[in-house]
């Protein structure tokens, strides 16, 4: 278990270092998120639906698509110079590769979310007020599960010829439950309702996290081995 953690942390640290040097995925994802929010902000009809009705969906769709850019990068960088072979040649358990990639993706998606949230408040003039702690809690629950699924599908998609095109097609159907739950909870929190009232949606997020984290960790080794 300690070996798994040590190797996982080594892989995550390497991914973060590569990203800090290249600034490829994170900068692109953040720029993408900002652009989507700007476009939605100017494209919506102020006389039409109320901002508060649209805002939660826009927030989570933005975070989801921006995260996909970071998922794409997770294994694309291992494809360059066949670096993945270098990892697979080592005696390290395959589960550590999943753990490392998961932790790195979690860090990237958390960063994207942390930057998207204030931009969202700015562009949509939403008052978070007391909703912020609840919003952060739902973000943690939603991200924990969908990053696990994203990590698995990015490992799967990178072996295909059109990884960037394949990933959204494979991944999006699996992201419907957490996005739907996150949108519902966010919507109610922004309307001033307490988090404790959203127990049913939070349970869905919790179950999704447990099920998909377990499944992802189980099937990942078979995916990376030929």
């Amino acid at each position, binding site marked *: 278990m300690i*070996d798994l953690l*040590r*190797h996982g942390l*080594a892989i995550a640290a*390497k991914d973060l*270092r*590569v990203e800090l*040097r*290249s600034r490829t995925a994170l900068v692109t994802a953040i720029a993408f998120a900002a652009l989507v929010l700007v476009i939605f902000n100017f494209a919506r009809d102020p006389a039409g639906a109320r901002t508060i009705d649209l805002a939660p969906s826009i927030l989570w769709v933005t975070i989801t698509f921006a995260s996909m850019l970071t998922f794409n990068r997770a294994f694309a*960088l291992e494809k*360059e*110079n*066949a*670096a993945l*072979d*270098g*990892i*697979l*040649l*080592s*005696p*390290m*358990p395959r589960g550590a590769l999943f753990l490392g990639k998961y932790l790195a993706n979690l860090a990237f998606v958390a960063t994207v979310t942390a930057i998207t949230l204030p931009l969202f408040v700015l562009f949509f003039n939403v008052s978070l007020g007391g909703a912020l702690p609840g919003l952060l809690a739902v973000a943690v629950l939603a991200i924990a599960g969908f990053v696990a699924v994203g990590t698995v599908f990015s490992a799967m998609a990178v072996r295909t010829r059109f990884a960037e095109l394949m990933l959204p097609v494979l991944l999006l159907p699996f992201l419907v439950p957490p996005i739907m739950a996150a949108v519902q909870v966010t919507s109610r929190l922004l309307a001033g309702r307490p988090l404790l009232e959203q127990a049913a949606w939070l349970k869905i997020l919790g179950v999704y996290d447990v099920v998909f984290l377990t499944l992802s960790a189980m099937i990942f080794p078979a995916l990376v*081995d*030929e």
Partner: protein
Amino acid sequence: MPLLAATGIERSFGSARVLRGVDIAVEPGTLQLILGPNGAGKTTLLRILAGLTRPSAGRVVLDGSSLRESPALRGRIGFLSHQSLLYDDLTPLENLEFAARLYEIAAPREAARKAIESVGLTDRMNDPVRRLSRGMVQRVAIARALIHEPSVLLLDEPFTGLDPRAAARLVELLSARLATHCGVVLVTHSPADAWSIASRVGLLVRGKWVIDEARPADLQAFMSRASGAFGD
């Protein structure tokens, strides 16, 4: 008993049969050269020996245990591929330190420094790999393959991009590894560089051994014989 033995190795990609029942046995302290035309199956054989590619049939055994069934044995293999296995945005020191961590080497940074020193790149160890020349990248890749002092070395075209001095240094490194009873399998199109330290030489054509024998003294005579066996 051979250090590394593969028996009845077959591999197909779709309808193409790349390897057709290849056997190979690598004794400790010996170097086996593998020659052959493009598409003969040399790289596929090396990847199967490294455990990176699953054979369609046959078995690879390292020190009496199956590589597939004992993943810990992977730590005893060093592999140099056509590609560098390096991250372009990291420096040679960072790349090798990461590799050292994967192999659970104590003091990984120190091990990385030593490995870089062994290929004569100390002055460039803090430059990103993307700024190094082709030959320098190859030297870092060689250091990566050797960092965990493997008991079996699988090398695919190790002399590619190396200048004569670096090639001579590689032969010295390989001789030193052979002296520690390491077994080496070396795939090449230009056998002259490693001919003097080779024990066996094999010619693979269309996935089968055409020649597999103790290394003869005369390279030129062997190459004339081999070119006749290359086929069209």
